[in-house]
């Protein structure tokens, strides 16, 4: 597990947490066939929170955040995102998905479309934004992730770090209220990890609600207001980053931290 040193310290002044609830998960259980992958998950995320989820491989971190935009279905309990409960009602699912952005480990850009088209596709087809306006928004976010000059290239022509930043811009173009990150840097070289993390720090500084599965503990210390440790499908411990790293309570957490730090 790497620990990339971020150059600048994150400016926490604007990272304020509001009282408004963004995500409420209660009594949630999920099975893959007979395998009980998530067990009694209770988690409330307020608007503006930056949460880092850590834990050993196979502990269910990805499954948890994929349940939040229903890439996976849960079988018991409830997940309420921005006041909309996730049920088999497709209308709710679409509503939640248009409010929640997601960034994947392997970027998942659309290789047959240019960077600009990747960014404008969903706004045009889902939000019905006029093409021109969508393109302006896309260029705005591409500038934000510092690659406006690549707009007309194809994903295959970009480096991994650039692709991941495009993926972040693509999500932002839908103006999400919540961003989910599933190990956004673990397929990247150290140099590229830094560029992606810096983009994410900027996003946090603007007050975006973020749930981030990552092994980048430097990022967690810098940005997170809460770290959640998962093991065997359960939330084992959660705390403020300072406390979490310096004073872990559970044995499992201690073992995990001793392995990765």
């Amino acid at each position, binding site marked *: 597990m790497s620990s990339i040193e971020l150059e600048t310290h994150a400016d926490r002044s604007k990272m304020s947490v509001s009282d408004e609830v963004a995500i409420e998960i209660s009594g949630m259980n999920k099975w893959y066939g007979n395998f009980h992958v998530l067990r009694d998950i209770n988690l409330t995320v307020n608007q503006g929170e930056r949460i880092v989820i850590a834990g050993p491989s196979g502990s269910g971190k990805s499954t948890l955040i994929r349940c939040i935009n229903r890439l996976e279905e849960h079988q018991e309990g409830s997940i309420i995102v921005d006041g909309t409960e996730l049920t088999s009602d497709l209308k709710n699912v679409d509503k939640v998905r248009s409010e929640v952005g997601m960034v994947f480990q*392997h970027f*998942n850009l659309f*290789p047959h479309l240019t960077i600009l088209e990747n960014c404008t596709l*969903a706004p045009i087809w889902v939000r019905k934004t006029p093409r021109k306006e969508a393109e302006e928004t896309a260029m705005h976010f591409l500038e934000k992730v510092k690659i406006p000059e690549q707009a007309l290239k*194809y994903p*295959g*022509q970009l480096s991994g770090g650039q692709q991941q930043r495009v993926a972040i811009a693509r999500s932002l173009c839908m103006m999400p209220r919540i961003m989910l990150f599933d190990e956004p840097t673990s397929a990247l070289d150290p140099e590229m990890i830094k560029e992606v993390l810096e983009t994410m720090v900027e996003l946090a500084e603007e007050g975006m609600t973020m749930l981030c599965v990552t092994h980048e503990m430097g990022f967690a210390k810098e940005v997170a207001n809460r770290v959640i440790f998962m093991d065997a499908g359960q939330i084992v411990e959660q705390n403020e980053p300072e406390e979490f790293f310096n004073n872990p309570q559970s044995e499992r957490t201690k073992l995990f931290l001793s392995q990765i730090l």
Partner: protein
Amino acid sequence: MSDLHFVRSEMLPERAPPASTVGVVGWMSENLFNGIVNSTLTILSVAFIVWAVMGFLGWAISPTWAAANLRDCQEIVAGHEGACWGVIRDRWKQLLFGFYPQELYWRPILSFVLLFIALIPVLFAMISRRMNWFLLLAVLAIGALQVGGTLGVALAVVLAAGAAFVGFQMVTTNKADRAEQIAAGAKRLPNPLIFSVLYPFIAPWLLWGGSFWLPIVALLGFVLGWAAMRLTAGVIGTLGATILAFVVPVLWWLFAAAGFADVAHGILPMGIEAVESRLFGGMLLSLTIGVVAISISLPIGIVLALGRQSDLMIVKALCVGFIEFIRGVPLITLLFVASTLLNIFMPKGTNFDIILRVIIMATLFASAYMAEVIRGGLAALPRGQYEAADALGLDYWKAQRLIIMPQALKISIPGIVSTFIGLFKDTTLVSIIGLLDPLGLSNTIRAHTDWVGIYWELFAVIALMFFVFCFSMSRYSMYLERRLRTDHR
């Protein structure tokens, strides 16, 4: 000892590669004569090719073009082995058109030329709208002239004027200026795809002839379906509206269309001479069956491939059943079903056109293969593509249309084109149920006393005709693959 120590004192200049690896000589010594085995094989292969080509040319170059029958040929070549090309001179029109009336040859020719104009905007991204419309209007003007009569001539004049106008524009304003005009808000010509959409209605009318109202009522079916969907979607929901969009046109075609066409024709008779299906033959027949089956089997194949992946058990079972059944049965069997059995299932007295029946069978056959080819493309897509589409909020159909299908089809291009080529060549099987495709015609021609005993000349020419089309398809697929390549450019 510091043997390991090394510091370069002087940088090396760039040098040209050794002469033995560049140029024609370099290429030959690398690829053809590298080593004894390779050299021997090269020499043997060249010798074999020369021998084969000489043999073929010796047979093919034979001054028998003017011969009126096989005996003439034998006299001309006087005992040597030589081709008898007289049969081609005598019968080439038949090989192309079958027994289609000679004075109406312009109609299949016009359909064929229009086919290319309809395909240009679909297949190629390089020709301008103006060019496309110019070609279309010019060709249509020539066509209208062929129809003759006051109406035809008047139409031809209008179309020619249109072509001249667009042509004049094209010559006087260059591309850059035109782009500027458009940017400044000048009206563009309509998208030439409009004609590509209308072509499937125009071409059958040109080929089979009859009342001009027939293609109109056929088209009207689609318009009605669309209207039904638009008007009812708000009232009965999307699913109901979609079903209506299928049911309304079918009901229209089955029960109302013919009557409507008759009435309209009674009021305003417009049309061209009708040609019966049994007169169709030669390449005309092969191309008709091939083109229709090819263009319909692709969308059906896509639907079947998606159905096979569906979560809905019934849809999935139906698709799998259909695909496996069709793939498990030889095409000939299906053609026999088309030629004989199908009539038993039809209501008494319906005259269901034999070419149409064959087209349906060939289409279904190709669709099943197409579905499997496309399924391969779908399977090659990483799950992440579906997930990214979902996460962005695209619904199933939008995700399929914008993300999944473009990529799956691109991956499947070689397989799709192989299926097309296979289908096109399979059209020769219709000779077995008595249709006069080029192979069927070759038997007919040989049955004539003048040409008893002729084989290779006919087959060579038929092979050449098929080769031209199949090879073009193959080259096109390579062009398309190159054009769609988006990585590492």
